[in-house]
Structure formats: C-alpha cells, structure tokens
C-alpha cells in the first residue's frame, strides 16, 4: 500500500541554522511513529512541516497523494487530512470545550451545527470528559485540556494525527490520562506521528522510533531494536538520560 505520508530529502533552515537536514520518511497507513531526540533537534519542525505550519525549503512532502506546498495552495486540503495536538494544548480560551471541537468542522469542513455538536460530544465522551463539555479551558486541568485538544483534532476526521510533546507541559499525575487516551486511539488503527519522550508509551504503541539530532534522523528502528541497540552514541546517551529521569 502506498504510504500516507512521504518526506523526501526535506531541508529546513532558519538563517544559517539547518533545522531539518535531508530528512526522508515514509509512514504507512495505520503506522505509529514515535519521534524522540534532544531539545532543539528539529522534532517540532519535522511534524509542523507535515501539515504545512512550517514551510520546508527543499525536498518534497506528500500527504495522501497531495504535495504539501503553500505556493501551490494545497494546504487546506492537507489540513483536512492531518490534525495536530500541541504541547501547550492551544485551546481557544473563549470557547467551551464543546465549541472548541465544533469550530473546525463547522468552518473548515462545512459540517452542519447539529451534526458537529453530536460528533464533538461523542469525541468528548471518547476522551472521557463529556461532563466538562460546557466548561471553558481555564476551568479544566491540564490533562483535561489536552484531552479536549485531542478531541478537537479528532473532530476533523483526520487520516493522520500529529502530536508534538503532548504530555510535556503536564504535571506528572496527569500524563497518564492523556497517554491512555492516545493508546486507545492507537488501538483504533489511527496513523500517528508522536513526538514524545515517554518511552513506555513508545515501547507499547510505536511501530517505529525515530531518533533525531541536529536536524537529522539518526535512527529509524522498531522499538525492540531501538531500546536494545541504539545505533549511535548520541542515542545511547539520550536514552540513558531519559530512562534515568523516568526511573527517578
């Protein structure tokens, strides 16, 4: 089957700084990829290029047969297929949880109000916060907010879900509830590209783990192999650092 996301020799520079260095990647439908690597290694930039939040300088990115290109005007089509969950949730503070989940479908997909509400409600149930539907983000805990953000992304009926460190801004006791929702999502066969340092999650759901450093993908391996034999010193160092922190 043809991959749903393809990146070929993608470069991204900010001034003299090369943030993505000839990154190539193929993600099959239903595949779950975890991206990890030190801070500043280009993970956020990588996922943001896939839905065109960041424009890449060279190379090609194709999502579901559509080339990601601002110049060619394909971004609206791409964003109907790719949804994203952010580290800082980025919920709309002036809208209730439910409205956060209906605004995208209503405006971008042209779905009717009643239908958008019904499916948003179903999604809030799926992330286990239906009782918070009419609260504003400020009235919710971090974990709850991130689950609303996941519901908001799912409301776009995407083919690919991007997660950029979805649990990094959360207090430890709330990480679990968000990861659980993500594991359930994985069980439905959703294609997921997840930037995270939650190695337990990676071990459990990832088909492949990408290790990035200095804008390059240094290793792309199934979790068993990645954890057993990190290919580079950097990865080994990174892993021992992360795992030590997890143990603590």
């Amino acid at each position, binding site marked *: 089957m043809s991959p749903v996301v393809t990146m070929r020799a993608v470069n991204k520079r900010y001034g003299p700084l090369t943030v993505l260095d000839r990154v190539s990647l193929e993600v099959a439908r239903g595949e779950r990829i975890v991206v990890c690597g030190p801070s500043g290694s280009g993970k956020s930039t990588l996922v943001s290029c896939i839905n065109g939040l960041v424009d890449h300088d060279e190379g090609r990115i194709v999502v579901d047969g559509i080339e990601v290109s601002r110049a060619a005007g394909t*971004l609206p089509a791409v964003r109907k297929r790719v949804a994203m969950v952010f580290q800082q949730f980025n*919920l709309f503070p002036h809208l209730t949880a439910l409205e956060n989940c209906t*605004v995208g479908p209503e*405006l*971008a997909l042209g779905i009717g109000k009643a239908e958008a509400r019904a499916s948003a409600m179903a999604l809030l149930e799926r992330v286990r916060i239906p009782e918070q539907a009419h609260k*504003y983000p400020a009235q919710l805990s971090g974990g709850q907010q991130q689950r609303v953000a996941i519901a908001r992304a799912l409301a776009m009926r995407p083919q690919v879900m991007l997660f950029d460190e979805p649990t990094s801004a959360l207090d430890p006791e709330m990480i679990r*509830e968000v990861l*659980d929702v993500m594991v359930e999502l994985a069980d439905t066969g959703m294609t997921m590209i997840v930037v995270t340092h939650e190695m337990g999650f990676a071990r459990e759901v990832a088909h492949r783990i990408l290790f990035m450093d200095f804008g390059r993908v240094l290793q792309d391996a199934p979790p068993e192999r990645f954890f057993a034999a990190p290919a580079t010193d950097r990865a080994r160092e990174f892993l021992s650092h992360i795992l030590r922190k997890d143990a603590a």
Partner: protein
Amino acid sequence: MAAGLAAAASLPRPPPVLARRRFGFAAGLFDTWPNALVTLLLVWLLIRIGIAMWDWAIVRGVWEAETAEQCARTGGMCWAFLADRWRLILFGPYPYAQQWRPALAMVLFALLLGASLAPALWAERRSRLALGIAWPVTIAAIAALLWGGVLGLPAVPSRLWGGLPLTMILASVGVSGAFVLAILLALGRRSDMPVIRAICTGFIEFFRGVPLVALLFLASVLFPYFVPPDWTMDVLLRAQIAFALFFAAYMAEAIRGGLQAIPRGQYAACESLGLTYWQAQRRIILPQALRTVIPSLVNIFIAAFKDTSLVVIISMIDLLGAANASTAEAKWWGLYIEPYLFVALIYLAICAVMSAYSRGLERRLGLGER
C-alpha cells in the same frame, strides 16, 4: 496501561480559583490616624461643596425672570433661562415646531442601542435575527424623521440639524465607522504583505499625527478645492468621515495591542484546523483581542463622543455649540454657568452610562478568560 484507564477515570481536581480579597466598604478610611484625618477632611469638603451647590441652585435659584439681569439679583442659578432655552440647547437650529422628530429619533436610537447592548440577546439565534432586522429599520426611521420629505414630514436639511441629536449622530456613526476601519487597519498593520502593512501604517501615523481640528477644517473648508466643482458632499457627511478616519487610527493601535497579546499557539491551532485567515480572525483571534482592549476602546469612544464638540469650528451646532448659542440673544447675555453646566451634565451622564456598560461587559466576558 489498562490499569491506567481506571486512574484516568478519577478526574483530577479543577484548577484552584484564587479568591479575591474582599474589603468592607469603609476599609482603609479610618484604620490609621492620618487616614482618619484625610477622610474627615474630605468629608468636610464634600459637605461644604454640597451646601454651596444647594444654596446656589435651590435656595438662591431664580425661577421667574425675563432677562439675565433680573436673574442676577440673587446671584443664584438662573432656572428661568434653562426653562426658556432648553429646547434650543437640546435641538440647536432644528425648526422649533419639528423638534419632536429628533426627540423621537433619539428615543428610538436609545431603545435600539439599549436592546443591542444586552449580551443576553446575542446568544439567541432568534433575537440576533430580530436585532438584525431592527437595525436597518430603525436607522431608516431615524433618517426619515430627521430629513423628512417623506410621509408628509417637511424636509429639514442636515445643516439645520443640531444639539444633542447631532452630537449623537456624529459620535455613533463616527465611532462605528471608525471601529470597522480600525479592525482592518490593525490587521493590515500586522499583515505579511509589505504593501498592505505600509499603507496601513502610513494611514494610522498620518491620521494620528494630524490634529482633529485640522482634519475637520480640511473636510469642510479645503475639501471643495480638491475635488471637481460639480462634486458636492454634505458637510455633515464630510465631518463624519473626518471623525471616522481620525478615531480609526487611534482604535487601530488599541486593537493592535490586543492582537499582539494573542499567543502564537492560537494561530497555529487555527491553521492546523484548516481555518482560513478571515475565519480565524473572526471566530478566534478578534474575539479574544477585542475583549482584552475593551477598556482602552471605551476610553477612545468616550473621547470621541466629547470631541464631536469640535465641529463648532466648522459652524455645525452640536450640543456644546447650541449651549454656546443659547445666550446669543441680548436678554440672556452674560450667562455662562447655566448652559455649560447643563450640557456638562448631559455629557457626563452619557459617558457614565458608557463606562458602566463597559465595566459590566468586562465582568461578563471575564468568564473563560485564561
């Protein structure tokens, strides 16, 4: 991981809400010796001023008088003058027998505005629709009342409009026009497109840098020199446009401040949901930005309302101009306090309503604030 599901089911506490410290009404008035002293001094002053006002307006007030001279005999307030002249002050040169028309127009406008400003009415689809119909209908009715020439009403040209209705027209049309323009200018000044950014920046800097008086002068006196001679434009409309452009520049900067306070993540979220630029602005960005700048916008609204009085320099007779004109007749020469106090209280009352409304709105919209 399945065990985690149970853990997730027990929901975390909602974030704590910091209780605001509450003070009693008299807190801080008498808690220390110096505070008590200042309090007593101020109370004494207020009482003295109150007594003096009472004495001037009521005890020595003159109700029966034909001229300013007769009024002057007690040194008190000349109620007789106000009784004689209040309609001139309120309606300016508008034909005396027709003054019920602007009066009715103002009542209609106040009702419309009052209804539109009730936040409860925005939420309901049906009432929004009703408002959407009420606005054009009422505006048309007001225009028909003021201009006349229809339904058997004698025509009254706009140069005869004056007093409070003129002030309210200048302020409300000017401010609403300015508001719409200001949003576009603020967005334009933050645009990615250099040409649009330059145009908006230039516009704002120009109209902010030129005194309003100069703009009004330009609009009324110099305008005819700049356009073909067969081009005529109502002087009221020209003044109106000058106001709108001037205040748009100020409001645009206030709104830009609000836009700058919106975190980048909000834009990223809008983009990732596939919202277009205008969808994102209308539903996500502007509602948040405008809410944060309500205080400074109201500040500008109030300033604009009062600055409409500058139209006197292009010989339009607004509320303040009418107060000025009310003593022009020889028999009321020499009276100053009464007419100006009268219009000052009207200005004050309207501005007080505006700020009370904005405080209520802020409180209401505070809900859901981050």
